[in-house]
């Protein structure tokens, strides 16, 4: 059985009393302490160390959660938020045991869609698949953005952890598209942040339209990995859903030339998203389990989804894209642009999983483990990052799996080496590789997100002391008894 690091969390209250209280709050059918029920919550798809929680609770409303937070704060009991469980980075692994709050099962309502100001107000358990279905059926003229993640990844979790999406070249991080949050802080206070902050008791459902201009308290919760409070509602921006969509595929020869291609195409401001993967990943997608790049083959492929309101607008955008690609060719970069629909018909229809998001990406679900170094990256360093990380994959005899994005029209990038592996058999080897990748990438200025605890430990050595001091102060102030996801960021 996996053991938690600290087993002395029941100093102030016995485990039996905790169970009684939880049952009183949530009802007996929504509380479990059986090992068989706890076990699936003890680890995630990555190589992060497993830890057993002590209880799982299934909340259905905010009142229950306020009672839980008050009780846990009084008794210094850890609370770990959980949505659909397809996490990376050990984000929901209870480092110190305690109570996992599974939002995914009962707090999963789409509370409101405001068509006029284009936002959706969500409970934490709402998934991408659910939101897409809701919009398609009820608001087909609106769209949200979807990551390369399974359909049942949680929208709110991804947004407040600054995940990315298939409109990231336009929009940047999903965290930037949050209009408002409702949170429960350590003292049991319910706070509404954003334009929804008017109103003493409850908010007007149509008041969740802006994050600014008041002091941005949202920063106290975004990217904090559940360390400062429980998010119980989140308003995310929606966008018009243009009727015309096309995706182009750029195949790039030369290990590092993809960087220039991504940057230049990003700056055109005509593509919704840019995501590039090593050629080995394309081969994985077409069912080659452990592919090897052969001489003469391209090194990277990038997808450029484009949307337009009219055919003329689409033609104009395509013209700009063509001009940019031709300019790159003139500079000596070997790049081929293809219509991905035609490519997938010719090559393998499995490639379509990348186009029809949210979807299970077939190359990611083949083994029992999946881990990554997911990072925000300075785009001028991509040329240095690719060969270094590529070499590390080869050193460990694994096919390079590098996934990159360009965010906000090339303001910054995403650099994400991914490792598929057999959990329980290859954890150690994979962790060694990931450690080496982490060291190289941090040195080049990459900033990991959805970060595992062992990785934040490495980051701390590079972060300026002032930041760390401020960070610790804020954490202490927000969570004096360290009840919210303790252990994250080495707290």
């Amino acid at each position, binding site marked *: 059985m996996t053991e938690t690091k600290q087993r002395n969390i029941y100093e102030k209250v016995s485990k039996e009393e905790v169970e009684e209280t939880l049952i009183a709050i949530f009802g007996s059918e929504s509380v479990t302490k059986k090992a068989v029920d706890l076990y699936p919550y003890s680890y995630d798809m990555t190589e992060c160390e497993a830890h057993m929680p002590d209880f799982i609770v299934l909340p259905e409303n905010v009142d229950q959660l306020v009672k839980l937070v008050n009780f846990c704060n009084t008794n210094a009991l850890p609370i770990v938020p959980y949505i659909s469980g*397809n996490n990376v980075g050990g984000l929901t692994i209870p480092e110190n045991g305690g109570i996992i709050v599974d939002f995914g099962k009962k707090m999963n309502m789409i509370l409101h869609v405001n068509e006029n100001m284009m936002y959706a107000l969500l409970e934490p358990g709402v*998934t991408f698949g659910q939101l897409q279905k809701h919009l398609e059926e009820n608001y087909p003229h609106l769209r949200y953005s979807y990551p390369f993640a399974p359909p049942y990844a949680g929208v709110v979790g991804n947004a407040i952890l600054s995940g990315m999406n298939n409109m990231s070249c336009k929009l940047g991080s999903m965290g930037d598209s949050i209009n408002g949050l409702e949170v429960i802080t350590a003292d049991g206070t319910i706070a509404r942040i954003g334009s929804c902050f008017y109103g003493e008791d409850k908010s007007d459902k149509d008041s969740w339209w802006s994050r600014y201009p008041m002091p941005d308290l949202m920063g106290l919760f975004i990217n904090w990995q559940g360390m400062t409070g429980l998010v119980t509602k989140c308003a995310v921006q929606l966008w018009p859903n243009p009727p015309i969509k096309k995706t182009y595929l750029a195949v790039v020869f030369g290990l590092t030339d993809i960087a220039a291609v991504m940057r230049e195409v990003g700056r055109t401001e005509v593509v919704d998203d840019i995501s590039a993967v090593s050629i080995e990943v394309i081969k994985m997608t077409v069912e080659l389990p452990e592919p090897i790049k052969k001489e003469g083959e391209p090194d990277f492929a990038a997808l450029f989804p484009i949307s337009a309101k009219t055919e003329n607008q689409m033609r104009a955008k395509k013209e700009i894209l063509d001009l940019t690609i031709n300019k790159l060719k003139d500079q000596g970069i070997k790049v081929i642009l293809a219509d991905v629909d035609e490519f997938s018909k010719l090559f393998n229809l499995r490639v379509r999983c990348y186009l029809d998001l949210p979807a299970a990406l077939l190359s990611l679900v083949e083994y029992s483990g999946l881990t990554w170094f997911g990072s925000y990256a300075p785009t001028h360093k991509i040329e240095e990052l690719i060969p270094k990380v590529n070499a590390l994959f080869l050193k460990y005899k694994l096919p390079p799996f590098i996934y990159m994005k360009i965010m906000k029209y090339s303001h910054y990038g995403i650099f994400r080496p991914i490792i598929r592996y057999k959990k329980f058999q290859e954890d150690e080897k994979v962790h060694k590789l990931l450690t080496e990748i982490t060291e190289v990438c941090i040195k080049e200025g990459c900033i990991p997100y959805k970060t595992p605890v062992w990785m934040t430990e490495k980051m701390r050595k590079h972060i300026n002391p002032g930041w760390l001091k401020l960070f610790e102060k804020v954490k202490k102030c927000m969570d004096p008894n360290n009840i919210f996801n303790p252990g994250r960021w080495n707290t």
Partner: protein
Amino acid sequence: MVEVDNSLLGKEFLEMAFDRCIKCSTCKYGYKNFEKICPSGEKFLFESYWASGRIRIIRGVLSGDLEWSDDLKDPIFACTTCGACMDSCQAPHADYIVDMIEALRELAVRHIGPADKQEFLVSRCEENCNPYGKENSDNEELKKIYNLPDKAEWVYFIGCTSNYRQQSLRDATLRFLKKTGIDFTLIDEHCCTSPMIRTGQVSIVKEYMQYNIDQIQKAGAKKVITSCAGCYRTLIKDFEKFGEHYDFEVFHSLELVKQLLDEGKLKFKSSYNKTVTYHDPCHLGRHMGIYELPREIYKQIPGLHLVEMKRNRNFAWCCGAGGGVKIGYPEWSVEISRDRLAEAKETGASIVTSTCPFCKTNLSDANEKFDFEFQILDLMEILDQLDIEILN
């Protein structure tokens, strides 16, 4: 890698649990339609009650992280093994999820025994060769009534549910087969072993399979027909899985109906002027991939108006009877059927039809318990109500 006991029939599927499943949750809801599809997960909610949770439990018990106790029984046995998770999952192990769950059950039975009351499925078989505890019928009486020979080209494998619970379906099938004029007979059946395999109680499975093969061969049959989706799945898939091979062909009764229609040999002389909705049995649909065949038959019946429930075909909501749930969790089992009938109500149909006696049993129980006022009929029973002509 953990060592798995070689004597376990499901060994390869237990090993698979270590190499597959990242717990992406795609198994939880209908892929791309995002509908609820998992009766077990929707009822009990905790991760241990969804397919990916059960795969984790395999890892837990084999690695020693989880100790065997009665606490494991519900997460392991409270699942209808309907296979909806298999259709949603996009990973390479998708087709084997039910095999993994059944292998976990086989392992669990060794350590903590079966779920409450499921042991009767075996003990009753040991006494009477059927899981209902009814005195075994050698079917000689039926052979006399229907004037059937001892040896024939076809054997109608009635199945325990039709023979001991849904005799109207059995009799409708017998009458239909007589009308077709095919050369068929009955055998002294043992349970097809489906209930035992589904609940991990595999001690007498191979013996029963061999017995049934012997009986069919003694009857000189080259073809076996059954009107039970569970028997059909077991005879085709599980016999092979358990290494029991035979040289006869196996058909579901609807395959014969469709063949006769296609050949122009089956003519309807009367109409069935009712609105009907079809419930896909898990063992025929998701487990065997038969979705369109029954629909093509219903659509050819004059007057019959076929309407679809919201969740149909590979993402149809299970009736709740399978996987040992009917006997192990009887109240919940009928609740699952209640949800299915509520969905049927939305279609405006007055008849809920299926092609499985077990589905018929559970849907009928919910129909009665929750006052839905449907007629629950098998395809063969609908055909039995029609004036049909079969050209030989």
